[in-house]
């Protein structure tokens, strides 16, 4: 194996000390240029205030003081907490169940399911929301048409009570397969005692999967929960794109990110919008940190 390492080409030898910096350089360059610098820029924006009349002036942390007591912002956070409590358990437990089933080989046509479940991830959110929007159509959507055909009341997916579920369904559709693939890969990575496995019938294979394999991918589950928390609190595209269909229940501050968007692009309050974004970032950090603490305690 090591034979190929003896260099056939003479080159500049980079030592162990400098190597990590050289390797990190390209990423850090783009990271700083296109993430850190814009962030600093945004932070600077958040300390100023630009008015149509009177121009720009420095206001310190005024925008943050305002954000902390802005009900439009906090109502969006509260909505997402409720949203996350519905959406995340469903999505992640479905993903986990499918991954366990596929991994334990308890079904036919594994490859088909694997690829088909993952497909929605490849559909842009713009298109996914468009599709579901049509399917939800309260009068002429296919679901309503089927209900009418069966003489059932037509479901209203855009009512105040249903809208969170309707949006949750879109995100479940989009991301269950993605999470499933991550779990599946983690499960597959666990070395299996084939001899032991070969002796098992269906029931004990499943028991084996739950008792033995599941605990081993807990770190991966924690990672996906973290990413889901972050993704949930930043929810924007789906409600934004479905607004036209559900105008009476989705307002311009439906989620914090939606609020930041309308503040910046419709109300021309770039400065306040930037402050809202940073407060949202802080909220995300708090939730993530709280979850990390909780999961660490649970692990002990």
């Amino acid at each position, binding site marked *: 194996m090591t034979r190929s390492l003896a260099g056939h080409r003479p080159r500049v030898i980079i030592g162990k000390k400098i190597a990590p910096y050289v390797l990190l350089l390209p990423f850090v360059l783009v990271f700083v240029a296109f993430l850190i610098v814009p962030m600093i820029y945004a932070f600077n924006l958040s300390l100023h205030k630009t008015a149509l009349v009177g121009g720009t002036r420095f206001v310190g942390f005024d925008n943050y003081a305002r954000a902390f007591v802005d009900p439009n912002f906090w109502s969006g956070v509260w909505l997402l907490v409720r949203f996350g409590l519905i959406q995340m358990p469903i999505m992640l437990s479905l993903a986990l169940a499918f991954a366990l089933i596929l991994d334990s080989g308890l079904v036919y046509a594994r490859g088909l399911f694997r690829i088909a479940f993952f497909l929605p991830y490849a559909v842009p959110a713009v298109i996914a929301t468009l599709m579901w929007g049509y399917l939800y*159509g309260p*009068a002429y959507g296919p679901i309503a048409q089927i209900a009418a055909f069966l003489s059932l009341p037509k479901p209203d997916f855009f009512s105040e009570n249903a809208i969170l579920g309707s949006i949750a369904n879109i995100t479940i559709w989009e991301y269950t397969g993605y999470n499933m693939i991550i779990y599946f890969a983690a499960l597959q990575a666990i070395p299996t005692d084939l001899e032991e496995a070969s002796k098992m019938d269906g029931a004990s294979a499943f028991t084996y999967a739950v008792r033995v394999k599941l605990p081993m991918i807990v770190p991966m589950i924690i990672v996906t929960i973290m990413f889901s928390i972050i993704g949930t609190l930043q929810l924007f595209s789906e409600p934004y794109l479905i607004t036209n269909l559900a*105008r009476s229940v989705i307002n311009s501050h439906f989620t914090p990110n939606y609020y930041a968007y309308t503040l910046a*692009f419709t*109300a*021309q309050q770039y400065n306040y919008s930037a402050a809202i974004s940073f407060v949202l970032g802080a909220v995300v950090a708090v939730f993530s940190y709280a979850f990390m603490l909780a999961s660490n305690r649970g692990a002990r």
Partner: protein
Amino acid sequence: MTNQKSNGAGFSRMNRRQLLQGSAALGAAAAAGGVALPARAEDKVKLTVWAWTPRTQEMADLYMKKNPNVDVVVENVGQGAPHYVKLRNAITAGTGLPDVALIEFNSIPSFRALNALADLSPNLPAGFGDQYMDWTWAAVSDGSKVFGLPWNSGPMALLYHADVLDRHGIAVPETWDDFAEQAKKLAKAAPGTYLANFGVDPGWTAAVLWQAGWRPFRTNGTEIEIRINDDIAKNWANYWQALIDAKAVDTKPAWTTEWFAALDDGTYASWVTAAWAPILMEQAMKKSFGKWRAAPMPQWQKGGKVASNWGGTVFSAFTTTPNLKAATDFAAFMSADPQAARFWLTEVFLFPVLTELVDDKVLMGHKYDFYGGQPVNEVFAEALTQVDPSFEFAPFQDYVNLQIEDHFAQAIAGRGTLADAFDRIQDAVVAYAGDQGYTVK
């Protein structure tokens, strides 16, 4: 945005440019004359135009044929919000603006507030505005300055589904009182069928309130009067609230496929709308083809003759354009050239703003199959003469629209009434205006 090489700045080049600009001005004066001098490619003036309307490039091509020294590129960067967001971003950045863009009438004050619109008057012949319908010119001009040239308008009328009304013995309403009465009658006679849908649509809301006499904004420099929740608005809100409470109108969002389908199959039997709506309806509707008719907008006073306008656009140039003369000339061509104006009306179905076309009996008398052979433009043309020119939009109309959407939505969802919504909108807009540095009166 010109292709002229900046390093070749010599005396002769300056002369040639002046000559070109002179010829452009001549072209404006002689409208269809096509007085243009042959020019070498590198001397071409390049104009970038942002417009979302279909077939705009065709008339731009015609313009280039008549003005070989100008190169016009039409870009569609979106319609409605995306278009304006892009323009505002470019204004903030100070670069990337087109030379000319389409702007709806209700957005003119917003862009003027950003000092982004160029004054076109120095390059327009005297009396240029006389050819336009009064209110359209009033909307673009401010004493001597001109911030855009009107292109098309949206005079309003009542479109109705004749079959549905006949079937249930509903009379075409002449007044809003009739309208309410017939709406209740229809809802009773045919449950699930509505005379109208009250969707949350700020553009429509402003337009029908315009007819009622609502004048929410008076801007004078940095001073602004805000009267959003005046008596007119409250009456109007109570009127619709009563219909909503009686379930005599539906309250689904507008502009969705569902909503188009409901108009098509007679679930919604009428739509108070603008002259540009028929073209959308023709594309979306099959079942109701030939069954639609147009009638004048319902009146608040019996025998009244007041209409309104919804939408409509102007061509504006931006202060950043290095080719203001050419931009003005191009806007003038698109707006007022007889050949172009006819094309917009007959081919693209944009309703005209030129008195000459509105008065043209042949053009306005065209019979449409979609309307069972009714010459509907006659109705719209009459409406156009009944639009009161004194309506002003806010210099931050997008924010106002956002508030209308949010608070109407709440009322429709049953949290408070429409009248309450107007109070909340007033409060929010007053606070916003103060925050933006205006002196609110």
